């Protein structure tokens, strides 16, 4: 596929808030089921091993008008739960046979109970992950929670989910993670060839496509991007952080780029890069998923930082590894985890002499001018600073 075709396909998937691709996938063989999940992380391997399609639900963005969803939330609560409810009550999520709500914050947590009330015929589970990172403590608890999920999905699928099924799924997702890691590395190396407005769409496609298909698509994109000859600009290289749950509109990402920033790392769709290395395939699959979660996974505000000295380390390393010159802190308005974390991260960045800028957005933010201006000023200051 040409670059245009790959990006075009991803864009169409992104814009399709009726999740037709999911419905088509289900219709292609009898008895297929799809399970939705919200940010940040669920072990998609278990869903896949049950023969089901994991579907990432990231709210309605700026593409739907939230009418009914607003009746469920006060003005001082972020946008993603209301647009997700909008998707649900307007039937757009009818293709899903269940929903998982990971433990990311109180809003998503409460949404899990609302979903139980509002969609009584669907499988709904709040999926808690450990905040204790010892194998014998948090690990044991987590493996048990994963066993429940595995049993529930087996029941729903009407068949057993074996250890071999799980090992196979771990393999499939290791491939997918490798492809996404390669894509991120490629963008960090040549951000002019792979702008984030495209990379975002390519990774987002993985929220609705089967992982095998998505892996191929990511590889195709990298190849297609590499074959293009795109102009290289004198942009500032930045890491964008804080957007791990509610997503900024695509226009906002474009605006940041147009303002003179190359985004060389980010925390969008963290589920695709949660495990920092391959998850071990041999041995007990749930324990392997657990160990990887406890010892080799991404950092994000919803995860407890055990030691003070580790706060912000993940971000600083991301800056270093991606060769960034600064950090753009973009958090959804009213996002407690992101906004409470922010002062701590900014302090660490200060200590390391890493410049930053911070703003808030909503998934339906329409006014890009102020953000473009802020990002532009930031990019200019970085360039001046590095020239000095």
């Amino acid at each position, binding site marked *: 596929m040409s670059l245009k075709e790959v990006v075009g396909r991803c864009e169409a998937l992104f814009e399709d808030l009726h999740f037709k691709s999911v419905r088509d996938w289900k219709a292609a063989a009898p008895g297929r089921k799809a399970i939705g999940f919200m940010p940040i992380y669920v072990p998609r391997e278990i869903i896949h091993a049950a023969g089901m399609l994991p579907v990432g639900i990231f709210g309605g963005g700026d593409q739907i008008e939230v009418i009914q969803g607003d*009746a*469920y*939330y*006060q003005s*001082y*609560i972020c946008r993603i*739960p209301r647009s997700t409810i909008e998707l649900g009550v307007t039937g757009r999520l009818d293709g899903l046979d269940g929903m998982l*709500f990971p*433990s990311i*914050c*109180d*809003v998503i*947590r*409460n*949404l*899990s*109970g*609302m979903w*139980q*009330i*509002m969609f009584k015929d669907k499988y709904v*589970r*709040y*999926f*808690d992950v*450990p*905040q*204790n990172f*010892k194998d*014998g*403590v*948090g690990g*044991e*608890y987590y493996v*048990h*929670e994963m066993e429940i999920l595995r049993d529930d999905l087996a029941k729903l699928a009407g068949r057993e989910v074996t250890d071999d099924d799980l090992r196979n799924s771990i393999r499939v997702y290791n491939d997918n993670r490798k492809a996404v890691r390669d894509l991120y590395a490629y963008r960090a190396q040549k951000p002019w060839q792979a702008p984030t407005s495209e990379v975002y769409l390519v990774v987002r496609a993985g929220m609705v496509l089967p992982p095998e298909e998505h892996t191929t698509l990511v590889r195709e994109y990298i190849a297609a991007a590499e074959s293009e000859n795109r102009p290289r600009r004198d942009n500032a290289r930045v890491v964008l952080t804080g957007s791990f749950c509610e997503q900024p509109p695509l226009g906002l990402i474009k605006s940041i780029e147009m303002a003179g920033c190359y985004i060389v790392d980010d925390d969008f769709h963290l589920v695709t890069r949660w495990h920092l290395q391959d998850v071990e395939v041999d041995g007990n699959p749930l324990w392997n998923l657990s160990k990887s979660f406890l010892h080799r996974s991404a950092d994000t*505000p*919803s995860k*407890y*930082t*055990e030691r*003070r000295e580790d*706060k912000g380390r993940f971000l600083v390393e991301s800056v270093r590894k991606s060769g960034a010159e600064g950090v753009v802190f973009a958090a959804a*308005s*009213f*996002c*407690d*985890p992101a*906004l*409470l*974390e*922010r*002062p*701590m991260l*900014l*302090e660490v960045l200060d200590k390391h002499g890493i410049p930053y800028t911070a703003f*808030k957005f909503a998934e339906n933010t329409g006014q890009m001018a102020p953000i473009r201006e802020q990002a532009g000023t930031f990019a200019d200051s970085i360039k001046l600073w590095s020239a000095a």
Partner: protein
Amino acid sequence: MTTNQPTPKPAAQPGKPAASQVQKEDAMWLQKEMINKNYHDLAVAHDVGRKVSATFVPGNLNELLMCFDFARSLPETNALQNGLRKKSGKMIMDAEREGHSEDVCTYVKADLGMMQAGQIGPTGEKLPVPDVLVLSYTGCFTFMKWFELVRQKYDCETTMLHVPYQGDGKISENMVQYVVKQLKEEVIPTLERVSGVKFDIDRLREYMKESVNAEEDLVAVLQSAKNRPSPIDGYFGGVYYIGPMFTAFRGTPEASKFYSVLRGEIEERVRRKQGPITPDGEMTEEKYRLVVEGPPNWTSFRDFWKMFYEDGAVVVASTYSKVGGVYDFGFRHDADHPLESLARYCLGCYTNLNFPQRIDMICKYIDEYQADGLLINSIKSCNSFSAGQLLMLREVEKRTGKPAAFVESDLVDPRYFSAANIKNRLESYFQMINQKRRATAGAATAH
């Protein structure tokens, strides 16, 4: 989340027997003394070689902390005490000036603002930097960030107790064992190390036995609101009743004494068919019986309460009086299984219940306390309580057939208390209840 004691002064009640006044004053004075003494203990702790712990109200391990002789601070209580004393507004603004977002929980900002201003506590004494932060984030993710922020500033030792959420509406054995293991392998060893005191499980058992006495009496006090008229206000008065239980006193003989005196006083009020004591004296006519969901506003606590009792509205049950433990459905600390019992206590706190459980609880209260309806005080700061309350309102109306209403305020940020607005909403709510009554009466005569 949390609790505390606005210490409502009963107005002189001519013609009332002296005995009941004395009893009332006994409970109040006792509590006031306890609170002040605790602040003083904290202030001098380091001078007398005592270590200081800080922990949150929901899931607080007070009995366990006492086993290590810690002086015990509860930052939410500090924030609300500062709110009651109208000091929190400046603290919040100071924290925002330092870069904290206007969107986040104001308890956190009040606490950080207090630190910035030199840690002067609500009673005017300087509070010490805690030696250990016991981070149990029962029912709220903000707690985790809160103590990470405090740790960032003071580099305090921190121990985490992850209490899983009751997503399925039940406490599983896996959850209990997870919490117990954390207590054994993380929390207790850390507390031993910081305090230099060896853990003695029998000491814990003794404190727990003491807790049970107080828990029994507290439940009796809260359930006295099933009477007509209710002798207590289970929300505004309720925060005064839960004060010692939810803070540094559960498990102490002082708490047992307080609750036994209080219970005696309330039972006397039941016998005398008296209404609740408000800051303006006894409420003599009970016109509306309400259930309230959500924390109160602290900065205008009295004004808020007045809007209720002026119109003859009494709160017969509230969910807020369950944030530091749900005791009225049977849970008691269990000295025979001390660690499991601590785990079950944490797992069962109100904000750790899932949404259907919270709704069930409210419907049950409306039924058992014969309430006229539900009022939700939605708190801008608090996602843990607030996210989803509009669905809760509709569900409760649907299930009980009773009217529900919604007001909005904040915990300790005076900028978000609009008295006129709230008053209007309450007035129309009371009218709604009247209409509903007339309609029901009309329907009854039509048959």
